[in-house]
């Protein structure tokens, strides 16, 4: 199951669209919501990012920034984001594949992220985490708002 609430966020390194690293240090100073999703362009992930993106202003008003995390390459994530027309920044766990997902304990045995949500406080402590029962379950945005 996903990393437990109350624990410090693990060390990890993800790649931003332009290739720069996004690490635990980038979690400090703001409330972060990591949205782990199985695959770019897959049906449920499409609905999930579209829905959450529609609520970006409301999340920002609550002081939270969302990031999408998958094992897809940065180019795939960027194409996915552009095709959907969403703004949520994407972070790639492509190489070493799934290492950050493993650190957050959300790596599916099939080699892709579980569908999971992790909220990290500005001090780097995990406030709340949720792992969907199956990758086909789309967690409502209310679950995130309930924990902000």
């Amino acid at each position, binding site marked *: 199951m996903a990393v437990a609430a109350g624990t410090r966020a693990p060390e990890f390194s993800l790649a931003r669209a332009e290739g720069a690293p996004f690490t635990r240090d980038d979690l400090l100073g703001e409330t972060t919501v990591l949205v782990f999703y199985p695959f770019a362009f897959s049906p449920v992930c*499409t609905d999930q990012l579209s829905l959450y993106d529609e609520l970006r202003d*409301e999340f920002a008003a609550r002081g939270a920034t969302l990031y999408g995390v998958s094992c897809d390459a940065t180019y795939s994530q960027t194409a996915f984001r552009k095709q959907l027309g969403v703004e949520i920044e994407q972070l790639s766990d492509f190489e070493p594949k799934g290492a950050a997902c493993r650190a957050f304990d959300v790596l599916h045995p099939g080699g892709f992220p579980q569908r999971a949500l992790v909220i990290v406080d500005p001090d780097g402590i995990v406030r709340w985490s949720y792992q969907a029962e199956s990758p086909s379950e789309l967690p409502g*945005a209310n679950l995130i708002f309930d924990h902000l």
Partner: protein
Amino acid sequence: MRGPEDAPLVIVYGDYECPFCAALEVRLRARPYRVAFRHFPVRSSHPRAEAAAHAAEAAAVQGAFWAMHDALFDDQGRLEDPHLWARAERLGLDVERFDADRRSAAVADRVRADFRGGVRAGIVTTPTLLVDGRRYSGRTAIDLLTYTP
């Protein structure tokens, strides 16, 4: 809300650009339900869904919500502004007032309130039906109406 007052209540979260919602709508019309429709437009999935929802609420200001609702679902391929004006004219609405209302803050707030209410209720996709306290989404919602005797 429409349908017989003593009929079972069905709450529908939908958007006018969603093809599954249109398929559901056809089935709903054939059944004796009391229907409450709530807007759940997600712009990145359906870019004209929000504008169409605003059109329905602007028609509501002139007492023609359901007429516009039906006209939108009946022709989902035509949801651009001139198509909305044409519908308003065909329904006998004051088109100038309709156009002002559909761009108004009051109408936008009404649609957004539906959307936010849906988010709070855990709605994630369209169509979603709420019947007897149970939630049915997507294909499941359509199947429910197809196979219920």
